[in-house]
């Protein structure tokens, strides 16, 4: 963890705002200073009108903040919400095209921290574009990221509700699983070869928060090839398959798991599918991912009776 998100300091200013900014609900225009996860300062004295998102999770945050019109460019992988698909594409999230990004003339580019990010910042700043970097490590960081982006884009009202609900649900899950038994869970991030989720990944945290025990917590990295033997030995009570495509029932993969009849999860029919995007993207929908995982690990607590 390089940088810890720092709360944005906002300073009310009496100066008139630039002509392109729309009237603000909160009254007079003011300057905001955002400090990103690299500790860099980014200032705006009017709400940014053109924003490019370089990560699917950021796109989801921006749309959740109601910046549907302000977002002018996204990556090829930004598929949620549906409206994001119709935005201009600036390439992959690991290798965004600088030219395509600059041509959209954004005032603000928001990205998550990657190996290449320092170079990206420099190149975009040459165009006079402000870059805001997020580096969430834990589910709680998402809340700070939403708040800091909201401040920078003058959407704090909207964020309050979003963050409030998120926090409420998170605390509710934590409270409900407090002190109860923790069944072993294997979450399959990829099949053939089997990919596990290890320490440092969001999915690993979600399992722990949802009252489970990740049997692959010995993985050497966040997502690593994992040996089947070790899973059979650990005898997980719950198996969660990650579906890369929403609503994919992953039937072939379920069938594959059912061959291992020694496993408690198989004997008890506890093989489930959860959409990968809900548990890998540090965005507002991750709380849904947490609820899904909690439901399959502790149905007795989280599964509401059919109404």
């Amino acid at each position, binding site marked *: 963890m390089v940088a810890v998100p720092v709360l944005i300091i906002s300073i009310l200013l009496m100066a008139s705002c630039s002509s392109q900014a729309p009237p603000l609900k909160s009254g007079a225009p003011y300057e905001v200073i955002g400090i990103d996860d690299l500790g860099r300062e980014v200032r705006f004295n009017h709400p940014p009108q053109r924003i490019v998102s370089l990560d699917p999770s950021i796109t989801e945050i921006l749309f959740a903040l109601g910046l549907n019109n302000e977002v002018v460019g996204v990556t*090829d*992988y930004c598929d949620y919400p549906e409206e994001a698909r119709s935005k201009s594409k600036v390439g992959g999230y690991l290798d965004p095209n600088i030219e395509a990004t600059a041509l959209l003339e954004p005032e603000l580019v928001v990205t998550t921290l990657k190996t290449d990010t320092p170079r990206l910042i420099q190149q975009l700043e040459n165009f006079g574009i402000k870059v805001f970097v997020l580096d969430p490590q834990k589910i709680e960081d998402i809340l700070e990221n939403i708040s800091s982006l909201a401040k920078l884009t003058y959407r704090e009202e909207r964020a309050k509700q979003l963050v409030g609900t998120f926090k409420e649900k998170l605390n509710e899950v934590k409270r409900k699983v407090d002190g109860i038994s923790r069944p072993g869970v294997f979450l399959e991030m*990829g*099949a*053939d*070869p*089997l990919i*596990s989720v290890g320490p440092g990944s969001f999915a690993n945290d979600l399992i722990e928060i949802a009252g489970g025990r990740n049997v*692959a917590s*010995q*993985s*050497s*990295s966040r997502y*690593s*090839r*994992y*040996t*089947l*033997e*070790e899973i*059979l*030995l650990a*005898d997980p009570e719950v198996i969660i398959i990650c579906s*890369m*495509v929403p609503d994919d029932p992953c039937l*072939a993969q379920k069938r*594959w798991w059912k*061959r*291992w*009849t*020694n496993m408690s999860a198989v004997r008890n029919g506890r093989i489930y599918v959860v959409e990968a995007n809900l548990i890998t993207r540090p965005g507002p929908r991750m709380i849904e991912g947490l609820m899904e995982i909690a439901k399959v690990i502790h149905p007795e607590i989280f599964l509401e009776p059919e109404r």
Partner: protein
Amino acid sequence: MKALSLKKWLITVLLLTILLVGTIIFCSFQGSADINFKDVIEIFSNPLSQNWWNTKAVILLKVRLPRILLACMVGGALAVSGVVLQALLRNPLADPYVLGVSSGSALGAIIAILLGLNINIGALPSIPLFGFAGGLLTILFVYHISKIHRKISTQTMLLVGVITGAILAAIIMFITSIADPNKVHGIIFWLMGNLSSQEYPMLLIVSFYVLIGILILLYHARDLNLLVLGEESAIQLGLEVEHTKKIAFIGASLITGAAVSVSGLIGFVGILIPHLMRMIIGSDHRLLLPVAGLSGSIYLMLADTLARTLLAPTEIPVGVITAICGGPFFIYLLRKKRKPIFL
């Protein structure tokens, strides 16, 4: 070339076969689960009891064994294929990779993965079939392009093979860069070589292809000896050179295609093992082919066992092990012998 006595052949092949079986047994005992001889005796002494499919039995018989046997088949196939291609082209650099056969097989298999062809064509699963088709088409293409005045120039063929391989590799890179990101993940891991999660039916199919191919090649081992002497001499000695070459190319691409399509790209076995064995037992193909096949099997089984146990529970791509362990050893032997080693 010294005469090869039947006795020498039998003893060498028998010794290596014993070593192969020993390796299979040794590798069966390596892994996360602690399985010892006592467990094995218990597993097999009461197969009908309730304990028959306890966790240890499942791990040993359904997880480890199919994987070890697959490594055995793939390693043997790649090594034999390397020996044959080196003989055909009379060039120490030739192997399934250099000639583009592996890339062709890989492209065929990737197309099958992308099209979502998990279906069976006849009784055969489509991915190995596509792999074999890709490998065969590549070798036929390379073969015909290299044909000048109805004769194959081996130098030209090597060059054409390298270029074709590069083109195919570029097409694979292109596909992975535009394909559905959800599928790319699988392809990339597949390209790095993966022997896990194969089942017995698939193992049987691959074994069938590989054993048929190796038998055909063994049958032509004497012809390969003649080919190595040079095409002119071979013709004078009454060999139908073009016919032999064609059969050998098809045999080599058959076994490469079958191996690559289930294991992905595992480099180095096809070039390392043939040269090592030539250093040790000479280049009479009647002996070299079976010896290279058996040692290729042993080598890949040991490499894959390292791949799955070294950082357990995390697995390492097996191609990493084959290159890191094999490369330095090869260089060491080369320096120690201090003489050119080919043919």
